[in-house]
């Protein structure tokens, strides 16, 4: 019975343990859209997030506790208040927003320097691929200087939250990495 497996699983992961995942990125990148795409599988109409949205979702028998923080300049300073106990960070980039790639890169590296996030895995979504003129995943990776990252599991996935492309692929990778690292 499934129960036996899940209780074995519980032992490995600590009882009922939830995984904390943060979704970060500049305003308008598509974070909230991705969160609800993951939770209800639909595109919702969003408003700029003042503060955060938090949802608990089950994914492959795991309980994920996903925090989507607002990306507006005034809210970014508060990101750090939610770093503790984070297993992974999903960093969302609007691939069409070439002007702000450097800002995104700066915020990303600043965040990764934080002590509390040293063990967190990083998944970057090069989002809005459905739009004409979107930079490809490798172009975004270059803009963000991802190769410079040391001692960290990271990956970049091209995605479109609107069309639902790339999101599960990215998350699958992330869950695999976390399981591996925590086992």
């Amino acid at each position: 019975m499934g129960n036996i497996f899940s209780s074995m699983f519980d032992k490995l992961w600590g009882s009922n343990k939830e995984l904390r995942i943060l979704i970060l990125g500049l305003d308008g990148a598509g974070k909230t859209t991705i969160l609800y795409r993951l939770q209800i599988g639909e595109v919702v109409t969003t408003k700029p997030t003042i503060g955060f949205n938090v949802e608990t979702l089950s994914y492959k028998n795991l309980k994920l506790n996903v925090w989507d923080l607002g990306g507006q300049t005034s809210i970014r300073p508060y990101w750090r208040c939610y770093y503790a106990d984070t297993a992974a960070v999903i960093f969302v980039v609007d691939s069409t927003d070439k002007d702000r790639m450097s800002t995104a890169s700066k915020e990303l590296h600043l965040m990764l320097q934080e002590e509390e996030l040293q063990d967190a895995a990083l998944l970057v979504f090069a989002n809005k691929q459905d739009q004409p003129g979107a930079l490809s995943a490798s172009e975004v990776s270059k803009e963000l200087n991802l190769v410079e990252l040391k001692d960290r599991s990271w990956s970049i996935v091209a995605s479109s939250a609107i069309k639902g492309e790339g999101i599960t692929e990215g998350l699958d990778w992330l869950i695999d990495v976390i399981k591996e690292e925590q086992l």
Partner: protein
Amino acid sequence: MSAHTYKKFENSTSGDLPDKMTIYQDCMNTFNESPVNSKRCRLLISRLLRLLAQGETFPQNEATALFFSISKLFQHQNDPLRQAVYLAIKELSGISEDVLMATSSIMKDVQNGSDLIKPDAIRSLTYVLDESTAFSAERLLKSAVVSRHPSISSAALCTSYHLLPISEVTIRRFTNETQEAVLDLKQFPNQHGNSEYYPNSTYISQYHALGLLYQLKKTDKMALLKLVRHFSENNSMKNQLAKVELVKIVNDLIYRDPQLFSQFRPLLSDWLSNKFESVQLETAKLITSFATRNSRLVAPELYAAAISALQSLLTVPRVSSRFAALRILNRISMVSPEKIVVCNPELESLINDSNRNISTYAITTLLKTGTSKNISSLISTITNFIHDVSDDFKIIIIDAVRTLSLNFPQEWKSILNFLIDVLKNSEGGFKFKNSIVEALIDIVSFVPQSKELALENLCDFIEDCEFNEILVRILHLLGKEGPSAPNPSLYVRHIYNRVVLENSIIRSAAVVALSKFALTKNDPTLYESIISLLKRIANDKDDEVRDRATIALEFIDSARNKDDVIAQNLIESKYFYDIPSLESKLSSYISSNTDSFATAFDVNQVRKFTEDEMKAINLKRKQEQIFNQKSETTLDTTPEAESVPEKRADANSFAGPNLDDHQEDLLATKYADELLSIEQIKPFGQLVNSSRAISLTEPEAEFVVRGVKHLFKDNVVLQFNITNTLTDIALDNVSVVCTPEISDEAELEELFTLQVDRLLPSEEAACYVAFKKLDEIVMEGFLNNLTFTTKEINPDTNEPFDGDEGFQDEYEIDSIFLNAGDYVKSSFTGNFSATFDELPCEEVAVFNIQEDLSIQEVVDKIILNSSCLPVESTQFAPSDSNSHTLKLFGKSALTGSKVALQIKMIKSSKGLALKVHGKGEDSLLCSDLVNGLMQ
């Protein structure tokens, strides 16, 4: 938790608060746990809230940490926990600025939460939204306002009400929805079938909607009128608070425009018999307080109906209604006691009401409606009553008796006996005894016949009085009044007893009192005994006592043997300094000290009053206190304190003596100091007189201007204080162009104008226009125009943009009149008719006023115009008579010559006829004052 500890926790006075640091640590640990333990978190939040409710606070960093850990609880969907979280956010919003981080999460609950938490979520939006985020809640709030669920709708309406000052534009977008919500009778979703025990709704959302709607429309009179008409139809208001609010809106409307009253008459009389007591009360309050200001506009039948509604409310079972009705009657009793005499039987039976608040109020009201016929019987009723109520109530009663003594001086004997009885026989603390002594002091000062009896009894009382302060006051009174009493030596013995028996504070006071008897004319033999007593005291073991005795001996010696007037004045306290002016002069002396105090303080700068003037001022103050208590009624009936249009202190709306005399005095001193420090003004010499500040614009105008007239021997300076109320415009080169009304025969020659170089938003500054006066008394009106250049403000620098030329503009403000009254200062005379007869010059004028003004309004206007002091309490016109005589006394500000006016007024159907009879030492001033009185 055991019952025992539970009790301990509940007892908030025992100081058994949970430890702050423990709670903080527990919160931080528990809230960050995963998974969330909702029960435990809720419990911890309630402890935290209890701490905060007891006034504990956390330093900002801890509050922030607490907030963030609490915000993490949003990950857990649990309604009871969520409610606790909202409460915590509300409390922390005062300490931590980071609460905005909860915005999105709260908004999500507003959208998707259960009906249980939705209202709470909506209400907590008030604390997290600010100017920049409020708009994002617009759609949510709008759909909540129209929700069928009364709690959700109410929450949204209240939140909108609170957000109004933060983001008016947003809230205005759902004015229509709000309007609909007023009439929408929302019911709770039917959970338990129709139950007769649980009403389906209180319809409270009607009240909330109406409150918000009023805020949205309050600047638009026509809209408010429409609103009242619309909502008072068909009994559409089910909620009683909503009905009361409607009454308050009417009150606001008639306060702004008294002429509207007549159109509300049918509505008001209907409301007087409304099924809700609170509606009756509010309506009666509205009618009666409106009538104190605009008696002409209230039909006697309506007024009588209001009184009779109040009368029947005095006997209803509900305590709060009885109390409220009584409170309104009590206020009326201060202004027109004759109007509520009909309620006396009910009032008398309320003396035995089991609620002490009610019985005390009943007594004080009765004391005011008292007529000379029933005063003594009333007094004996209170005598029985007063001994078994608490000090607070006793004090209220004593104050009422004190007012009585001012109103019925001829009843002094029974009042005095009552006061003496309670002073000697009633138990009570300092405040209580002090209030009695104050009442006695009043009687002694204003009712001379009472002096002997009162002083004698006070002498008895001080033989065993335990309160230093009261003893000192009585000793002072004995020293002041004793020497002129028929038998001064009696008091000397009592005073000297204090020197023998009491502590040094009292001994010092006794010494001063004793010394005043040395010069008494009633009993010259006292001189010797006082000297020998003082000599004995000069060996006292206390420094202060000794010093005072020695000084007193010196003074007495100089006064008696060297005819030294100063010493005599000091002993007999012939004059008094004006305390506010003394205070401000002293503090400016200390702060502007340039030579380490080598120059002594010049006490001659300070205003002085003679004893009679002082008495007049005190009497006036006491009467004003009564007056002010009654004008309160007009203020707190309006729905919002801020909606009360600021009173314009000009002649047109002058409503009796000013509330803030002291404030005005200080302001006048400040203006004068500023003026005299201006280089160009210095050659004008001494400032002779300054007027009160006069409003020259509506208080809500873009530029608010107040004018002050300053008079010098040969010059006149008009000061204009300008406030720039615009938020984004600076005014440059602001000045006022004054054009004399009768320009061809101008007896004033304009010398110069001092402009304000730059007036930034919300700043106030003064510009001046100076004239040379070609005659001693010049009367003139000035048309005034404000001229300036507007420049837009650069939001980055808060200064105008560089190189902006701006726009030249002007703005017309009200005229200012320089009239005879500006040359007069009020003064006091003890015996008006004698003074009046003695004055040599005479002028008579007759005026006819067609305008529909009450006698009181004319009296107020004349007092203001003439700058004279009303004497013999003639400033209060009786409300039940068609004639009145006003007596005024003053002195020329330039020469000090006396002037007295006696003004007879008769009101008839044709209007108001005035006969002004003026007398003075200076014929020019007298005739100018008489002829210019009604300008």
